[in-house]
């Protein structure tokens, strides 16, 4: 809902096709590409008539923008898959690179650090847009953590197939967050936030996790 609020504040019309479910990444990442295609096909059809599709998370954004073309390579639906990929944007990518907007009129006092979700960072190349947006949030003090670009350990089914490795990676991330003295850790990927929050709470730390859109929606 935060994304909707921000986009409407900027004067856009937002629609949410209720028939949508999932981009299919869990099946794709596990190697079940036929199953992933079955789910992805539906989403492609649902968003056929959309002008622009905005996605809240870097990993879903990457799935559509980067992996749908590969998933549908040589498949009858390849053209539609590529068309959807071309008009889909992760939220910060859309604001900064498509709309050219850096200041969404947000206010959020506090000391925060930003975690780069791997898909957003490496598959979509979005290092700067989230930071540029946060820099314009009134009252927000943004500090960089040493391990900002290091994977938090979520990785989809990896988190439950290899929980000990996943948790170890989460611990490294949380230690780096703690070093900054930040009260909040912000990211553009909810799965990362779930992982980081999960580790922080177990450690009894008071740092709160926030999605980029939550921060930008505050006025």
């Amino acid at each position, binding site marked *: 809902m935060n994304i909707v609020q921000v986009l409407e504040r900027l004067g856009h019309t937002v629609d949410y096709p209720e028939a949508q479910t999932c981009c299919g990444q869990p099946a794709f990442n596990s190697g079940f590409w036929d199953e992933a295609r079955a789910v992805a096909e539906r989403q492609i059809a649902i968003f056929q008539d959309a002008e622009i599709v905005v996605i809240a998370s870097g990993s879903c954004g990457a799935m559509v923008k980067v992996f749908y073309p590969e998933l549908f390579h040589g498949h009858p639906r390849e053209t539609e898959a590529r068309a959807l990929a071309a008009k889909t944007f992760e939220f910060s990518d859309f604001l900064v690179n498509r709309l050219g907007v850096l200041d969404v009129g947000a206010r959020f006092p506090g000391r925060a650090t930003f975690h780069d979700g791997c898909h957003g960072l490496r598959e979509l190349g979005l290092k700067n847009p989230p930071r540029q947006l946060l820099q314009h949030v009134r009252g927000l003090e943004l500090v960089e953590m040493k391990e900002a670009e290091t994977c938090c350990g979520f990785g989809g089914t*990896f988190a439950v197939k290899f929980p000990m490795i996943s948790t170890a990676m989460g611990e490294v991330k949380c230690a780096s967050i703690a070093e900054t003295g930040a009260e909040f850790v912000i990211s553009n990927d909810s799965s990362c936030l779930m992982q980081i929050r999960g580790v922080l709470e177990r450690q009894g730390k008071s740092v709160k996790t926030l999605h980029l859109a939550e921060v930008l929606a505050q006025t």
Partner: protein
Amino acid sequence: MNVHAKTFNEAARHQTADLRQRDWIQKALAGYYAKRDEFKNRFQSWSGARDTAAAVKWEAVNHLDRYLDEFASRLEARGTRVFWAPDAQAVRDYVVGVARQHQVRSIIKSKSMTAEEIHLNDTLEQAGFEVVESDLGEYIVQLRHEPPYHLVFPAMHLTRQQISDLFQDRLGSESTDNPEHLTMIARRVMRRKYCEADMGISGANFAIAETGMISITENEGNARLTTSLPKVHVAIVGIEKVLPKLSDLALFLPMLATAGAGQPITCYNTLYGGPRQPGEPDGPEEFHVVLLDNRRTELLADAEQRDALHCIRCGACLNVCPIFKNIGGHSYGTTYQGPIGSVITPHLRGLQDWKHLSQASSLCGACTETCPVKINLHHHLLHNRRNAIQARPARFEKLVQTGFVFMMRRPRLYEWAAGIGRILQPLQRLVQGTVLDPLRAWTKTRSFPPLAEKSFRELWRKRKKL
């Protein structure tokens, strides 16, 4: 789950619980990152260098027959014996044969991952030859009867105290916590070995087709000594090591050093083009180059993943991999660790036996980002996962995925399930962490967030009504 996967899980569990070791590895790599970045930034364009390096390796690997043939012919023209080895056993037999022929007693070795791959040391020792690893790190793990921890830094997991204790125990040396003294102990031992060894075995970093030479990169000088003094030199070279031209080294040597070790250039980069030539004062009487296939051609046949053969064995991907940093090199249980190991081991040793290495990754992509020759490493992990499922779908997981598809194609059902989840969550809280908890894999070490009171859908509908 097969035995390799089980062993991997146990090792990973053990290593991730060892906080001291995890910390140690992080510290060991901290200096590398700083140096690597310093020397990358000296390049006029590191990105341009990567593009060129990728293109050169593409050319080499995609015309491998031509370049290998040229390489072998030129070597033979200068008096080198070239042995084409289709598999590991062929190499082992050949090297033992050469050693017997020359009545070798002691063999000195410089670092060779291909020799590790085919377990050459074990074979030679069983055949009655003394084999000594001359590279300091390799020597240390050899004394410990351990495999190398990292393909470039074999002993990075050990403290100086551990090494001192090891030397004291195995060599009778004095205890010391001074790295220089420890190095000198090994140096003294090795100097005798270099002078007395009958045969030197090395690997090679590159095989130059244009001039028929192998190129060996090292810092210590042990490879130069291994290949200068003994009567016989055998080099074991993976067929994918080919570079088309001598001039390619001008790019690859600095890139290998920077990406692999955070150095502008490695101390010794040596080209060997034959046995001792007429007029030369020293050098081996016989020079053998063994070209190793050992299933590399199978990887070559997989056009989608063929670029994994572009690997120059720099180790940069290991150095940035969060999985490697937390589970350590030994957990992999293979010669090649880290991301490259996870990509190629299923090809070199069997997909179904080793697919777990491709599964044990969060696909963060740091490896692909850092690879000097732009191998699409993390995507190949996905490809291996897909190939493994296509060859043999795991029945239980297939069921789960089918259920996933069923639900995701039916938004009402999806909504309903999420609603049920909300209702059941308090129940899950009751059994959290116990055997009854369905989310146990997660909740054992992390808290699970409460599902939102109202789903987005519900909020959206409410809004529309207003």
